[in-house]
């Protein structure tokens, strides 16, 4: 990679994805960031339980399955972050009284898991062809003990950090849709981290565009 490019956009690990890899779900995708890997499946618009029916929009359900064991409190917190981001991006009023389920399976966690979940979720929603007003991506930043901001950290870097932040950023105005933070951060550090994430998001959105181009290049 170019040295100049490092200055322009903050360093992130290599990322990759594959869409439509599962046959049963309506949309599926896997997203890889470095060694972190998440598999996502989307079902819907499908029939909804009467107790969960919302009369003017679709009911979105997000499930995160950890690699080992049963989902716990941490997964529930992540589910809520992902659900609220997806609800903001999806035009769920176009499918009232139906259910959308998004299932995220953690394949390997090497840091930035929530960001990777968000990216996999966006890819899977795109694959399912659900109406969305914009795309979104997730970026994790940590502040090291020396006060340096690192984007897309590994598990080791996360453990050694003073604070950790994850942002969901929309593709149109690059605004923050969701944020989840841990540790103490000054206002200036938060703003710096947001600015860095916004710049890093451009690369992810470009990656989305390239992978969609490649996917649709076969059908003329």
């Amino acid at each position, binding site marked *: 990679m170019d040295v100049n490019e490092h200055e322009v956009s903050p360093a992130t690990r290599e990322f990759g994805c594959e869409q439509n890899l599962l046959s049963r779900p309506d949309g599926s995708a896997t997203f890889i960031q470095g060694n972190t890997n998440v598999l996502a499946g989307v079902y819907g618009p499908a029939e909804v339980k009467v107790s969960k029916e919302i009369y003017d929009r679709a009911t979105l359900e997000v499930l995160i399955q950890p690699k080992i064991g049963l989902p716990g409190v941490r997964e529930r917190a992540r589910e809520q972050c992902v659900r609220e981001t997806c609800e903001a991006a999806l035009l769920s009023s176009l499918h009232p009284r139906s259910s959308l389920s998004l299932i995220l399976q953690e394949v390997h966690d090497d840091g930035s898991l929530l960001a990777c979940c968000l990216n996999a979720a966006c890819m899977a929603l*795109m694959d399912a062809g659900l109406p969305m007003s914009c795309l979104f991506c997730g970026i994790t930043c940590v502040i090291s003990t020396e006060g340096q901001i690192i984007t897309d950290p590994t598990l080791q870097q996360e453990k050694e950090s003073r604070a950790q932040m994850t942002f969901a950023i929309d593709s149109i105005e690059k605004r923050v849709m969701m944020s989840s933070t841990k540790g103490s951060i000054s206002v200036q550090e938060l703003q710096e981290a947001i600015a860095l994430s916004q710049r890093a998001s451009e690369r992810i959105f470009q990656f989305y565009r390239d992978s969609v181009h490649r996917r*649709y290049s076969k059908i003329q």
Partner: protein
Amino acid sequence: MFASFKDKIGEAVLPGDVFTLELPSPENKAKAEKLICGPGLRRDGDNVSVCKCGVLRHKPPNVFWIDSQQKRYVPVKGEAVIGIVTAKSGDIFKVDVGGSELASLSYLAFEGATKRNRPNVQVGDLVFGQFLIANKDMEPELVCIDSCGRANGMGVFGEGGLLFRVSLGLVRRLLVPQSELLAELSALFPCELVVGLNGRVWVKAASTQHTLILANLLQSAENMTAKQRQQLFRKVADGAL
């Protein structure tokens, strides 16, 4: 006015992409052109925004839509689909069409059906019909007659044949006028083919073996380029299967 659309035709677009319409100013007496937005495009003030991921298509003079590879069907009025009868309740049948809700089908909506003369439809039968009502707020309703009361190819399926699912994109490729895929397929074996826009395809050929070959070929044609497909079909024609 359509300049921003014109350079993107045939290219992949993503949700959130925006096309601006250069509307003629009111002083300029140029006649305003009409624009028809198909699936995947939404009007958003003076702009048109994309809400689905796919390839932008254009039909002259002014129709634009997005062609995407989806698997889940959403009922649209007037589309012909293959449904499975799942329940009989009073004077309607409940039909599974692959959408988010079961569609209803009246027993009077068959050719020649009257209150006395009920059509012979059992639970588990396949029906080919079109949507009379399909919108997001109402239960979809199927009919097996056209507006003149004729069956016009619709109704209950006969014995034999095989039903399978393919992606909605492949179905649309099969149904375009003068479809290459369909021509190549019918050149291979004589067959009966019913294609529903909900991604269900029913095939019946002279023998079970031929039916299965056709079904497998159709399912594998999904992710092939025209060249790869022709190669495969030639192999089959030479008796490789």
